[in-house]
């Protein structure tokens, strides 16, 4: 449906792979105001389409690819797009966010989102050209079975041949892991990936190897002059901020290894400890010193946090913190080059590095404890290249490892040390030294995800230093961060742009009086966060800590003050939850393995475990959910979801 707002292309298309037909999906300006775009419009569509009886691997499960209104408008860090569905890994509503250029080209093709239903009869790849859909055989074209990079290269060559010219386009593909339904297979786009929650397996199940997209639509903004002027400010804010202007471009997320080690939150030996003896061999500094790094970024982003590293004399994508930590400390591997090799291999095979590494760590411990004789053990990582190839091909123990740690623990025992929540393996942050992050991992809609969980570690010892062990205020801050990140992602911007939320002085003067007072005070300000969470609409202005809202207004022409923005985020977060509730999710699923909630990390310090039940209770209250973890009717009404 055409729209009064700029930034949007005004078209959402539903594509049925089984019948190879398309139709327009109804989408109104009211929907745009309520659900913005990206992951929240996907949540609304899933809410419209899913009843609670669908299986992840079924024709009824739609794969929704959506952009935000800011995607492609030139607003900084707006190169993101979102993929949502019922996750093969968790069986619940999920979303995965990805950079690269696909989102930009989807909009150039005149589409805000595509809903992919049904299943291809044969291995297929899909070409989208200005809203025209063409199906090609992935077998005849020699794509099926290829790794991620060769797939994308082959697709590019085929298109160039067909067009007789080098047109610009975006693409996304799955690797062998997705084809073979590894439950944590991801989707790759250029060098970026929508890695988590197994969406690549869903694409594989649909027999869809890849999608290319191009078009020549213009993406318009409401006030071009204002937009440009604000962009200049916003770019400068990002470039002058110590985190987004210095730390992230230089070291990317890999720079976190050392501080996490110092704060005992670097997951080690399958989350049995928080410090790794040989961390210096695998930390971000060593990576920068030894592997000749050049930074690289997604389109429209001045942060450029991605790194190209040198492996065997060839430039390859460097590991992110999660991968770096989980493939080193968490499996007691101190060989950095091997980490790079494994990371590259996992990317090429198209699977989630976090879940794969987490599953392997569990398998190592299960083997050492005599639960499952699989030949894997801590400190022995040399053979893992072969192991992950076997996972992608579903051979030998790889066939079982492809199921993830939750299902394996159900089979072999060892639930207490299967480090996952709702079936999704945790990221590399050891939550017993950042208990707010522990709450986030447990309640997150996606499962054990640090970002969807609110990413409280940023204030619990990485950016700020509030008491990491206290449960005080953690639930309320978690809710606010979750809602804010939800809205930023839905607008089409990268979550890393939210680091400007922390005024520079707090970062450049970590020992200064302002920072010290704030660190001490924050745990006592739960009430303030609670009040804002409850009445966000009272904030009818733009705040300097969130330049995003003004950028949003300039680009779309839609009113979006800070309070509106937070409310939209809350709506999205609750909607995700509400759809998952139809699939039976509740408080019983918002949990962590016993290792993290019952055993103190430091035997001499009983507070070094996650007091989950206390925080959960407060969290549900803050969110207006019942103690069973379901949104109350009054909450749904308040959020205009029903």
């Amino acid at each position, binding site marked *: 449906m055409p729209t009064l707002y700029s930034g949007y292309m005004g078209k959402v298309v539903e594509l049925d792979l089984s019948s190879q037909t398309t139709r327009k999906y109804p989408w109104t300006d009211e929907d745009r105001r309520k659900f913005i775009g990206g992951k929240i419009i996907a949540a609304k569509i899933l809410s419209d389409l899913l009843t609670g009886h669908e299986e992840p691997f079924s024709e009824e499960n739609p794969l929704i690819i959506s952009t935000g209104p800011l995607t492609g408008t030139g607003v900084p860090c707006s190169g993101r797009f979102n993929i949502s569905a019922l996750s093969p890994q968790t069986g619940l509503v999920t979303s995965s966010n990805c950079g690269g250029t696909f989102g930009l080209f989807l909009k150039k093709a005149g589409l805000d989102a595509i809903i992919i239903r049904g299943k291809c009869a044969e291995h297929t790849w899909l070409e989208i050209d200005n809203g025209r859909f063409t199906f090609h055989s992935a077998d005849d074209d020699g794509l099926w079975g290829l790794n991620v990079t060769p797939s994308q290269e082959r697709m590019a060559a085929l298109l160039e041949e067909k067009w007789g010219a080098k047109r610009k386009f975006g693409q996304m593909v799955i690797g062998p892991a997705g084809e073979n339904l590894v439950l944590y297979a991801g989707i790759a786009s250029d060098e970026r990936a929508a890695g988590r929650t197994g969406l690549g397996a869903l694409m594989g199940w649909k027999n869809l190897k890849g999608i290319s997209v191009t078009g020549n639509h213009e993406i318009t903004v409401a006030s071009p002059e204002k937009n440009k002027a604000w962009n200049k400010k916003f770019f400068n804010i990002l470039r002058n901020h110590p985190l987004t202007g210095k730390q992230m471009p230089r*070291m990317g997320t890999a*720079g976190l290894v050392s*501080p996490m080690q110092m704060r005992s939150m670097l997951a080690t030996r399958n989350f049995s400890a928080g410090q790794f003896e040989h961390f210096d061999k695998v930390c971000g500094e060593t990576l920068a010193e030894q592997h000749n790094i050049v930074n690289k970024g997604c389109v429209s982003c001045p942060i450029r946090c991605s790194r190209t590293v040198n492996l065997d004399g060839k430039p390859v994508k460097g590991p992110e913190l999660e991968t770096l930590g989980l493939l080193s400390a968490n499996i007691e591997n101190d060989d950095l080059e091997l980490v790079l090799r494994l990371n590259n291999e996992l990317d090429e095979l198209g699977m989630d590095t976090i879940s794969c590494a987490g599953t392997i760590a569990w398998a190592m411990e299960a083997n050492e404890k005599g639960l499952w004789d699989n030949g894997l053990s801590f400190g022995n990582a040399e053979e893992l290249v072969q192991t992950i190839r076997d996972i992608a091909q579903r051979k030998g123990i790889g066939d079982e490892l492809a199921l993830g740690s939750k299902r394996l623990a159900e089979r072999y025992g060892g639930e207490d040390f299967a480090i996952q929540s709702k079936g999704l393996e945790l990221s590399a942050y050891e939550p017993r030294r950042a208990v707010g992050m522990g709450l986030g991992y447990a309640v997150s809609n996606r499962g054990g995800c640090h970002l969807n969980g609110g990413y409280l570690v940023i204030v619990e010892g990485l950016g700020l230093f509030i008491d990491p062990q206290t449960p005080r205020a953690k639930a309320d801050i978690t809710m606010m961060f979750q809602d804010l990140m939800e809205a930023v992602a839905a607008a089409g911007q990268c979550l890393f742009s939210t680091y400007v939320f922390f005024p520079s002085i707090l970062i450049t003067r970590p020992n200064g009086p302002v920072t010290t007072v704030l660190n001490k005070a924050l745990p006592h300000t739960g009430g303030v966060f609670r009040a804002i969470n409850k009445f966000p609409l009272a904030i009818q202005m733009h705040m300097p800590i969130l330049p995003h809202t003004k950028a949003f207004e300039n680009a779309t022409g839609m009113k979006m003050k800070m309070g509106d923005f937070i409310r939209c985020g809350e709506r999205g977060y609750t909607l995700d939850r509400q759809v998952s509730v139809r699939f039976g999710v509740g408080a019983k699923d918002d949990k962590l393995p016993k290792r993290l909630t019952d055993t103190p990390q430091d035997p001499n310090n009983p507070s070094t475990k996650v007091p989950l039940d206390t925080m959960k209770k407060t969290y549900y209250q803050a969110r207006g959910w019942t103690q069973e973890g379901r949104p109350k009717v009054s909450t749904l009404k308040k959020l205009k979801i029903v």
Partner: protein
Amino acid sequence: MPQVHVILLGLFRLDSGLHEVSLEADKVKDLYPQLLEKARERNPQTTVTKADLDGCVVLVNGRKSRKGAKLSEGDTVHLMSPVCGG
């Protein structure tokens, strides 16, 4: 004066090239001029400044501390430039 072991992390380590040094100082902040001196010795064109050190998080024997903290013989001091997330 107590002799302490200083370990540098983050951007300061990358920019100064200093990893670990043993120095003598009564207080943490007394280490700073010495560290800048060492960085300059290593590379006369170094870009690191006192502001970079002021921006570092201080840990003494693994515990969060302050610039003004007193040091004892054999302490390990970590100086770590600020980071954000992933």
